[in-house]
């Protein structure tokens, strides 16, 4: 190449994803890259943080700062990096085992905090990387390929959990709809506060129940696709008046009801959204001088250090 063309970053890298052919993760990856490009973010101002699992490999495939952390711990890590440098756009990603199994405690408690970042869960109903055990979203009675017996535990409802935990943006996406998903991600990232997207993700290797064919309704007589956009139905997830408790509860109620819609019709899109003070806002209130706990590349002894010694005299 003679002249390097200055072009908009596409967030691609030189590493080929090692996901299986047909894996829904490709769709989510593309949607994230697309969303970042659409928002015209600069790669160095973005950090993608992941847990462990097939899904956990995502940061390796996106041209931003990337942290492939521990199984179940993406949210605490994301919390730390965001608070260290609020200028960063932080996106946490991970599997459903990662997020709702081993990470369930962080899923719940991150919701309360309302830090300004986005969490995307790759929900494939299985533990992919460990070869297909049931994940916490697999429902009672279901038996995927590599299970020796059908599930005897119920599946949790991620949307319901998110709403009860305090997430201020709660949505569901579908991996095979990268365009729609990219848009959802843009909305999530732009939302002020913790935004959460549960993405239905086919795992062609281990989940032989929730397959692309199934989501598309190819098994149905009428061949009607199961997933549909909430917006098409005129569903309104947004709390207009965040000080109106009745409105909040009512919006949470309908979101909960929608989240249980499953089987023949599966809604995707934003289920709940509200504008609330973020954790950062709360911190700033404590520190009225406007110093926002910014990144400190060069630690210098704080100027007024000696003043604090006075307390001990």
């Amino acid at each position, binding site marked *: 190449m003679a002249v390097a063309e200055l072009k908009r970053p596409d967030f691609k890298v030189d*590493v080929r994803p090692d996901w299986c052919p047909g894996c829904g993760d490709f769709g989510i990856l593309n949607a994230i890259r697309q969303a970042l490009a659409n928002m015209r973010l*600069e*790669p*160095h*101002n973005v*950090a993608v*943080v992941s847990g*462990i699992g097939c899904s956990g*490999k995502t*940061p*390796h495939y996106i*041209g*931003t*700062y*990337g*942290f*492939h*952390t*521990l199984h179940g*711990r993406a*949210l*605490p*890590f*994301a*919390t*730390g*990096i*965001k*608070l*260290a*440098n609020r*200028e*960063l756009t932080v996106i946490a990603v991970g599997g459903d085992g990662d997020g709702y199994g081993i990470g369930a*405690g*962080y899923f*719940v*408690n991150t919701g309360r905090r309302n830090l300004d970042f986005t969490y995307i869960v790759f929900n494939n109903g299985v533990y992919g990387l460990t070869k297909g055990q049931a994940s916490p979203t697999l429902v009672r009675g279901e038996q995927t390929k590599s299970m020796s017996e059908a599930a005897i535990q119920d599946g949790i409802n991620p949307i319901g959990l998110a709403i009860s935990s305090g997430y201020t943006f709660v949505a569901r996406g579908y991996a095979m709809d990268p365009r729609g998903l990219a848009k959802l991600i843009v909305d999530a990232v732009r939302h002020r506060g913790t935004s959460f997207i549960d993405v239905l993700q086919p795992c062609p290797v281990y989940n032989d129940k929730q397959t692309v064919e199934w989501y598309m309704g190819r098994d149905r007589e009428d061949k009607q696709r199961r997933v549909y956009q909430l917006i098409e139905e005129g569903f309104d997830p947004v709390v207009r008046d965040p000080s109106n408790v009745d409105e909040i509860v009512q919006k949470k109620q309908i979101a909960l009801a929608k989240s249980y819609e499953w089987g023949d019709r599966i809604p995707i899109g934003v289920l709940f959204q509200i504008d609330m003070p973020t954790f950062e806002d709360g*911190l700033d209130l*404590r*520190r*009225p001088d406007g*110093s*926002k*706990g*910014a*990144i*400190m*590349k*060069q*630690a*210098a*002894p*704080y100027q*007024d*250090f000696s*003043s*604090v*010694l006075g307390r*001990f*005299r």
Partner: protein
Amino acid sequence: MPLNKLSWMIGGPQGSGINRSAEVFARACIRNGLHVFSNIEYHSNIMGRHSFYRVRVNDKRIRSHVDSVDLLLALDEETLLGDVDSPYPTHRGHVHEIAPGGGVILDSALGVSEEQIGRDEVQVFAIPYADLLKEGVSRAGLEYNSRRHDIMRNIVSVAASFALVDMDTSVIVDILRQQLPARRAHLVEVNARVVEATTQFVKDEFGTDFGFTLESLARDSDRMIIRGADAVGLGKLYAGCSFQTYYPIAPATEESEFLETVQTQFPITILQAEDEIACINMAVGAAHGGARAATSTAGPGFSMMCEGLGFAAMTEAPGPVVCLYQRGGPSTGLPTRHSQGDLKFALNPGHGDFPHIVVAPGDIQESFEFTFKAFNYGDKYQMPVIVLLDRVLANSFWAVDEISVDGLVADRGELFSENGAANGGAPYKRHAVTESGVSPRSIPGEPGGLFVTTSDEHTDSGKISEGIENRLAQMDKRMRKLDLMAAETPAADKWTLHGPEQADATLVSWGSTKGAIIDAMRVLDEDLGIKVNFLQIRLMRPFPAEDIAKVLDEANKLILIEDNYSGQLGELIREKTGIDIESKVLKYDGRPISQNEVEEGVAEAARVGPVRLVMSHP
């Protein structure tokens, strides 16, 4: 009779205000130019169980407690005689600890007789608390109201103590004046009257019979009274730490609570997380994000941090600094009691071989200083740093003249931007294999420094790799940083040989036992004729094996002193040097070793030779 040497103790139910009394007492002594060391013992309970607070006063600097009590202030009968009649008795009270010639102050309303106390050589000072309160309140022109005024019982206790030992009680009022918030300033006057009434009563009733005396010395107004937990917090502030996570746990919480009180003043974020796994991973995230990050916990919480520590080491995070406040283990154990039982765990805190640093301060200045240095270590060697503290170091009030910041300069290690040019345009490699092992680090937000890193084994660019040659290169380079750290750290930071070069016996220990040992050394030498020196080891990993072996080889008798069951430092020393310290003075009853226990243990070990001595003063 003893002048300016007093072992004072106040005991009573948890929640009855003994802390307040003891802290006013200690502060007042300092105001009067004396030195103090004061530590509390209490149950894992909010209200009701027996607790007691020791304040040892001296005209010379002291760093430890002694088991005997010169003046006991008993707020209830249990403090005197224990709970021997309860279905699950735990102690025999403190009367038996009183030194011959010592005394007991108690509320005459308790109705405890001298016979019950049963010690002829002990003086009993019964004080009519209620009457004195009433008297004081009315002198202040108010009407006595038990709900409102009983809180001043503390002040009666302190004033009575001071009066007995013939110390100027006005300083008590000065302290209250300083400490009471403006909106409660009117209370100073009432307190002053109570002090007055109490002083007068004590002088009238008991005269100067009590032989122990405290005398005001030239006032050194700058002396501080401070806990290890505060010193650690100050170390973090001075190091520029801007992110601290914690999950409440004794005895670590105090540090975070101190930091919370200054978060409006300094650009530091203190986050109470949902558990310790969150704490460590948030801290690792913040460290990678560019902050100097830390977390603090005790054993049970640290047990949750293993994976996060390995993760920090694997991804070469600059830190975080993890302060581990040891308490009585195992398991939930003795939550509010002391121990040095987590050393070996801190040395092996996760699966696989990975580098990390463990440093153990022994007093207030070291707590401050090595917390500060821990951030430099983290940044320079890109690995987690554990600062090992413990209950008595953290929560005891020590009198110190100064916190010295001499020579403490922040060093954030090799940064990518400084080396960017040298790269010659080659893509940045976060885990570049270098001779030193250190790879210049970039911080998210840096335009040219994009990288991915992972808890999986990875290439120099941070990509997952299971390749053999890469694995060896990365493994070796990570571990190599420990050698670098060892080489760059001055021996004076790693260990100190206190006392004479030549001695009959060399005491070997670490951490907070330093106080009791230093205090005991003079007595051992002067009173017991045993000349000792003391090897204090501070850097536990990388372990200064050669230095230590040399010191130990040159020593005569070796005596290990530790507040744990196994003699964990002894095991470490043997692992690294082959040297077996056969004489061990150990304590693991949940209480810190006292100066006199060091004396007793060392004397005994010196006398009988190789022996395992378990110290305890029930």
